[in-house]
């Protein structure tokens, strides 16, 4: 009887251990806010991809937080001196999830798939692709494109398996997604969850990962939870192991919570206030300059974001070389300068403190999209503008329709917006005259800016030349004050006790390079 009891207890113990081990090999990651709602894992046709994408697919190269590039499916690369050819050596032995080999022919098939697609601009400079041999591929360029590596490192440049891609058509990325990444897609329910299972054959990680073999977790579930409070409470109660993107609002709460750990790393987002240069009173550069210098970035950082992140004083995130402009171009809070400029522009303080010119009060429209953070921010900016004599009337517009409103080239005057991008060409996107309305919400149309834009976008032959050209273009745009920079958020993730994080987050965010190093906690 005693023996039976012992045996039963041993069996129970073993069962419990097995269950614990199985649980330890699985993890649930939660995505919230803007990461929610990616409709497909088709990198070629998607305009929105989520964190799980780089676990299913690999890219030729990946980019680290310091903007350096590292091979993932490519082992090395070389550009010809005139920038008209790029030759990539590919890693041997790489296989897709369905057993098909990855080689130079795959790349030669892949690039033309972008033609006419949603992401065609990424390969616009490539004339044709030549498979030199099984593991060597050469890009022949229409014109030099020093930005090629940046484009190749984008999530939209993840490489799908050709046969499955062609067989599935629009269903690729929805019902099945086959890549070479460290995980296979097992199940995808739009807006709900993606279940990934480990690719045990994986042995071609980028050099950014310490782990060069298969991932540490056997199964990963990426849940999408739109409501941020719910996402945080799932992490707090152990229903989730990792919150991929912690909303800035929640940072203080998570910092104070002993049940979860927080990791912050440099962000790739910038919050700014476009100034519509095509409508009064902002056709006057002095009024634009005064408005830009009236925004107190440090106060916003401290009061709204609890000191997390950094102030913005240019249009680009600080880690970009093109953000290193001369000090005179930086836009930092200076209320005395703002007031002086308003005076010079003829706007004098009225009896209630709001400035007046020719009997007209300095009242402007200030737009933003719905969302707690935007609402709070716009109210602070409204108060700061009032302090220098400008009355801003706030309009909160649905996030799904605000861009369409801008596109109508309406009479909006100021707006609070944010962008997420890690390349200086964002200056072209948001200030090129051909995109006036949206995304050029500032309706900026300046001949000198257009000239500098053309040089930066089309005449740069090397990366260094491109950096110099974009820096010049960026500086000129700054000197015309079509916007006020506000804030650079940090990226942050929070995790529970079942997760062991690597010491450093590698890459431009939480991508496969770091996720390969995330392990079950002992």
């Amino acid at each position, binding site marked *: 009887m005693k023996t039976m009891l012992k045996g039963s207890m041993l069996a129970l113990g073993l069962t419990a251990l097995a269950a614990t081990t199985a649980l330890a090999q699985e993890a649930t990651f939660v995505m919230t806010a803007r990461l*929610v*709602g990616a*409709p*497909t894992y088709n990198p070629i046709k998607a*305009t*929105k991809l989520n964190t799980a994408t780089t676990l299913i697919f690999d890219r030729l190269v990946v980019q680290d937080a310091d903007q350096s590039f590292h091979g993932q499916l490519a082992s090395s690369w070389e550009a010809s001196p005139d920038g008209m050819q790029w030759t990539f050596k590919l890693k041997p032995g790489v296989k897709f999830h369905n057993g098909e080999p990855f080689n130079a022919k795959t790349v030669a098939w892949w690039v033309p798939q972008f033609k*006419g697609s*949603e*992401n*065609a*601009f990424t390969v616009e400079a490539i004339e044709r692709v030549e498979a030199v041999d099984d593991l060597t591929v050469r890009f022949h360029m229409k014109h030099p494109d020093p930005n090629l590596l940046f484009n190749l490192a984008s999530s939209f440049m993840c490489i799908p398996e050709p046969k499955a891609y062609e067989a599935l058509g*629009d*269903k690729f990325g*929805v019902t099945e997604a086959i890549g070479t990444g460290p995980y296979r897609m097992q199940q995808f*329910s*739009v*807006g*709900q969850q993606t279940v990934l299972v480990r690719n045990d054959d994986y042995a071609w990680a980028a050099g950014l990962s310490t782990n060069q073999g298969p991932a540490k977790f056997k199964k990963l579930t990426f*849940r*999408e*939870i*739109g*409501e941020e*409070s*719910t*996402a945080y*409470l*799932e992490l*707090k*109660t152990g*229903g989730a192991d990792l919150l991929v993107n912690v909303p800035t609002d929640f940072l203080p709460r998570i910092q104070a919570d002993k049940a979860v750990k927080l990791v912050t790393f440099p962000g790739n987002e910038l919050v700014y206030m476009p100034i519509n240069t095509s409508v009064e009173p902002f056709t006057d550069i002095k009024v634009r300059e005064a408005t830009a210098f009236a925004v107190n970035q440090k106060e916003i950082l401290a009061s709204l974001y609890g000191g997390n992140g950094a102030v913005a004083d240019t249009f680009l995130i600080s880690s970009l070389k093109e953000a290193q402009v001369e000090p005179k171009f930086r836009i930092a809070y200076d209320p005395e300068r703002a007031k002086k400029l308003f005076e010079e522009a003829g706007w004098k303080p009225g009896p209630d403190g709001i400035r007046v010119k020719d009997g007209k009060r300095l009242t402007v429209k200030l737009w933003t999209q719905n969302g707690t953070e935007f609402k709070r921010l716009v109210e602070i900016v409204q108060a700061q503008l009032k302090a220098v004599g400008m009355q801003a009337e706030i309009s909160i517009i*649905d*996030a*799904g*329709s*605000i*861009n*369409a*409103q801008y596109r109508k080239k309406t009479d909006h005057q100021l707006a609070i917006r944010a962008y997420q991008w890690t390349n200086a060409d964002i200056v072209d*996107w948001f200030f090129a005259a051909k995109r006036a309305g949206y*995304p050029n919400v500032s309706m900026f149309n300046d001949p000198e800016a257009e000239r500098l834009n053309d040089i930066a976008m089309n005449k740069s032959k090397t990366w260094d030349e491109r950096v110099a050209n974009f820096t010049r273009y960026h500086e000129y745009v700054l000197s015309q004050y079509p916007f006020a920079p506000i804030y650079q958020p940090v990226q942050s993730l929070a995790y529970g006790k079942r997760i062991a994080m690597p010491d450093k987050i590698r890459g431009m965010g939480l991508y496969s390079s770091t996720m390969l190093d995330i392990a079950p906690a002992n």
Partner: protein
Amino acid sequence: MLRFAIRRLAMLVPVFLAVSLVIFMIVHLVPGDPLEHLIQVGSSPEQQAQMIARYGLDQPLLVQYGRWLAKVAGGDLGDAIVMRQPVARLIAENLPHSLALGGAALVFSTTVGIVTGVLAASFRDSLFDRVVMGFILLGSTLPSFWLALLMILAFAVQFEWFPVSGARSWDALVLPALTIGIGGTALIARVTRAAMIEIAGRDFVRVLQAKGLSFWRIQLRHVLQQALLPVMTILGLRIGWILGGAVTVEYVFARPGLGSLLITALGQRDYPLVQGCLLMLAIAVMLGTLLGDLAQAALDPRLRETMGAR
């Protein structure tokens, strides 16, 4: 009864057409379009024009409506533009979750509402009546978004009885069902109470009392049976309302369902999907009303005679 049912069903056709037109127009007249989610910021105007033409969005609204209605009449809800899947499939994947949630909420609100209404009517104007009805009324006035978060904080975070969100186990249904159910409980309880009180004052009740039947026998077997007629009407309306009312609750609890699907589709201005979801909700309301009417007619022969004679 069959004639009555056919007549009521036929009346739904013009309602359906009117509803479909209103839905289509509202969806298309709201600012924004799905192209925001199909076109990269760096895309050229030519690429944008190609996309617009590809989805027929360059056609006049009435032409677009006609095409959509013709498809719907043929049983095809079209393909979601942004999600790139057949709308019918997306709805079919999500509808069972909404039905489970709506069904559980309806069972809860009906059971608790009727029991509370009967007790409140039986102990009319007592402390019990005032406290319980007041408490239920308070619960029903709380915004479902807020009530959902309170539920999570109390029963998932504090007591750890239920999961915070999701639909991965049966117990994940409890908190969202309670959140939706509480809203309907007050209505059903109040209607039940009012009907019970009104019927209890009729002559036949006094006859039953004179015959010596017990108070509870009269209340439960005779008064309640008649009091259920107006409750049936309310329940019919609630079927559709619960599916639509689950939108915010599904969102907060991160549950799949028509509500979550609708919110995602609205955010992306995915016209065919929004239209499909709204049409499903409208159909649910219409069928709920029909079921309520049929149930009422089944319980009260006078009603079907009146309707049938017209």
